[in-house]
């Protein structure tokens, strides 16, 4: 019995780490939370103030004159890039999972799945390198002008100017590739494990194999698909290095079209810490901690939802994406 208690205490390090992260960020960013107020998430300006002036005290917090912190442009950038990533990744992931589960022979399936799912193992900074070196030139020279001339005629958000290649759509494309394997792997597992009898019944009724998959097997795995999409959402929201390298790191700028530079909450923390450290009052660094706090709470909610959907509702004990 003592052994169990001892193990239980050691295992408590996991919850402790999670609590410590949220608590430390909350305590550290408290002066910033107090100063920024709820307007933090709707203001569209990140301004350290006049760094050469003497600090002034506002609402009991020392700030540089003119300092104002708002992250609307980051929230917009994060949500839009994640949305684009999901819009690209969910159909491709579903298609790949369907094909792997049904059209690929058993002995090949394992190898092809493994090869495609190795994408999950590639470090995000390598995705960033790939995006920076080859995807940006490719998209900005070939795909973006084409998109602007075709879709751009119909949907103004896709119209030019197509910019440098660093921007919202590029970030969305790179993010999409990072999250597709999560969706494909989890869904393929669920599809293969669907009861064969339903599929056979559909075939016996004269459905084609595709109809049996699309109308019977796939709907049976919809809870897994929703859960996996939440997992992918959580990953895309918090992705840092790849976005940092391809998004253009916009500051105080809302994208006017899909090619415009953006920044996300995660990438902004990395790109701004150096300049935030120039603020002698430390409020800029604390405001960055507030961003990290917001991001951690969002990701905790999204991931908790994903696990509840997968484990409780969808009865999946473990997805491929850990």
């Amino acid at each position, binding site marked *: *019995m003592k*052994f169990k208690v001892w193990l239980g205490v050691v*295992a408590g*390090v*996991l919850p402790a*780490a*999670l609590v*410590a*992260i949220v608590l*430390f960020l909350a305590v*550290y960013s408290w002066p910033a939370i107090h100063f920024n107020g709820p307007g933090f998430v709707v203001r569209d300006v990140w301004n350290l103030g006049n760094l050469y002036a003497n600090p002034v005290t506002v609402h009991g917090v020392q700030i540089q004159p003119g300092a104002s912190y708002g992250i609307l442009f980051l929230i917009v950038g994060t949500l839009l890039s994640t949305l684009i990533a999901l819009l690209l990744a969910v159909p*491709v992931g*579903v*298609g*790949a999972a369907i*094909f792997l589960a049904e*059209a690929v022979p058993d002995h090949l399936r394992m190898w092809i799945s493994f090869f495609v799912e*190795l*994408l999950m*193992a*590639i*470090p*995000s*900074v*390598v*995705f*960033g*390198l*790939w995006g*920076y*070196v*080859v995807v940006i030139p490719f998209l900005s020279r070939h795909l973006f002008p084409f998109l602007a001339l075709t879709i751009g005629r119909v949907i103004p958000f896709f119209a030019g100017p197509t910019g440098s290649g660093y921007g919202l759509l590029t970030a969305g494309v790179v993010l999409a590739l990072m999250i*597709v394997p999560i969706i494909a792997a989890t869904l393929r597992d669920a599809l293969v494990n669907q009861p*064969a*009898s339903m599929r*056979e019944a559909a*075939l*016996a009724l*004269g459905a*084609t194999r*595709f*109809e049996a998959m699309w109308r019977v097997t796939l709907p049976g795995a919809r809870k897994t698909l929703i859960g996996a999409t939440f*997992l992918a959402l959580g*990953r895309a929201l*918090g992705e*840092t*290095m790849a976005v940092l*390298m391809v998004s253009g790191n916009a500051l105080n700028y809302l994208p006017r079209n899909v090619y415009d530079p953006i920044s996300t909450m*995660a990438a902004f*923390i*990395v790109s701004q*810490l150096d300049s935030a450290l120039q603020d002698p009052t430390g409020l800029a660094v604390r405001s960055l*901690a507030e961003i*990290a706090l917001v*991001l*951690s709470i969002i990701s905790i909610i999204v*991931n908790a939802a994903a*696990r509840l959907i997968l484990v409780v509702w969808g009865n999946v004990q*473990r997805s491929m994406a*850990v």
Partner: protein
Amino acid sequence: MAIAIQQAPAPLPRRIRLSRRIVSTAGWAVAGTCLLVLSVMMVWILEVVFVRGARALNLSLFTTITQGTGGGLLNAIEGTFVLSAGALLLSVPLGVASGIYISEYRFSRWASVIRFLADVLVGVPSIVVGYFGYVALVEWGGWNFSVAAGSISLAIICLPYICRTTELALRQVSNDLRDAAYSLGATDRRVILGVCLPAALPAILTGVLLALAVSVGETAPLLYTAGWSNYMWDGHLTHSPIGYLTYAIWTFINEPFASANALAYAAAFLVTAFVLVINIMARFVLDRRARR
């Protein structure tokens, strides 16, 4: 009957409407294209990393330290291993212990809480962990950029992976083994440490290897905890920054100098090759065990 259908799908009757056949064929074509796109992207990434990386590789990378925007990567290679080793040193005992707890006492409420929070912790963005490390260890703890701060941040990332893979490894151990041990009068401790753990050891080690791959590939948690150094590690746990390979990828690819870009490609080659080799090895170990 079921087997017969799976092996040879019933031939479609001729009378299926043409429109349905077209939709079905088009459906498979679209699905196949999705898979093809994914595979092509994977090949493209590997091509960029390995072809350009191989061109940048040479012996002096492994023998000299970084000098400005050139030189070698010895300091970064050493740093990556020091940081990852530190992370594993911290996260393996804790992770394996908590994995044992949530597997062997899986019906207790505390176990389900930990299992759930481990899954949530996996999803916390690595930059959040990194910024926590900066705030708590570098600033508040006063350690400055250091091996200790970097390793602890990485350990937080590895911990839930190791915990969950240990749990799954132990769940593969047959209950007959546990029953047999208990019937001989063994205590919980003997059963777990003497019977279950040895049986699950290969799978647990696989999980540890995968956690090592994750820690070698991470960048964001280290940027503001480990810092960067052009020199070899001086052996101090705190107050001295250390280099690592992923930082070299991120920084040196942005430099306008060919020598710096070559360092970035070489670092990307090393990191990706290491991560992929570990994943492939882990897959073969797991696969061999699964077939047995």
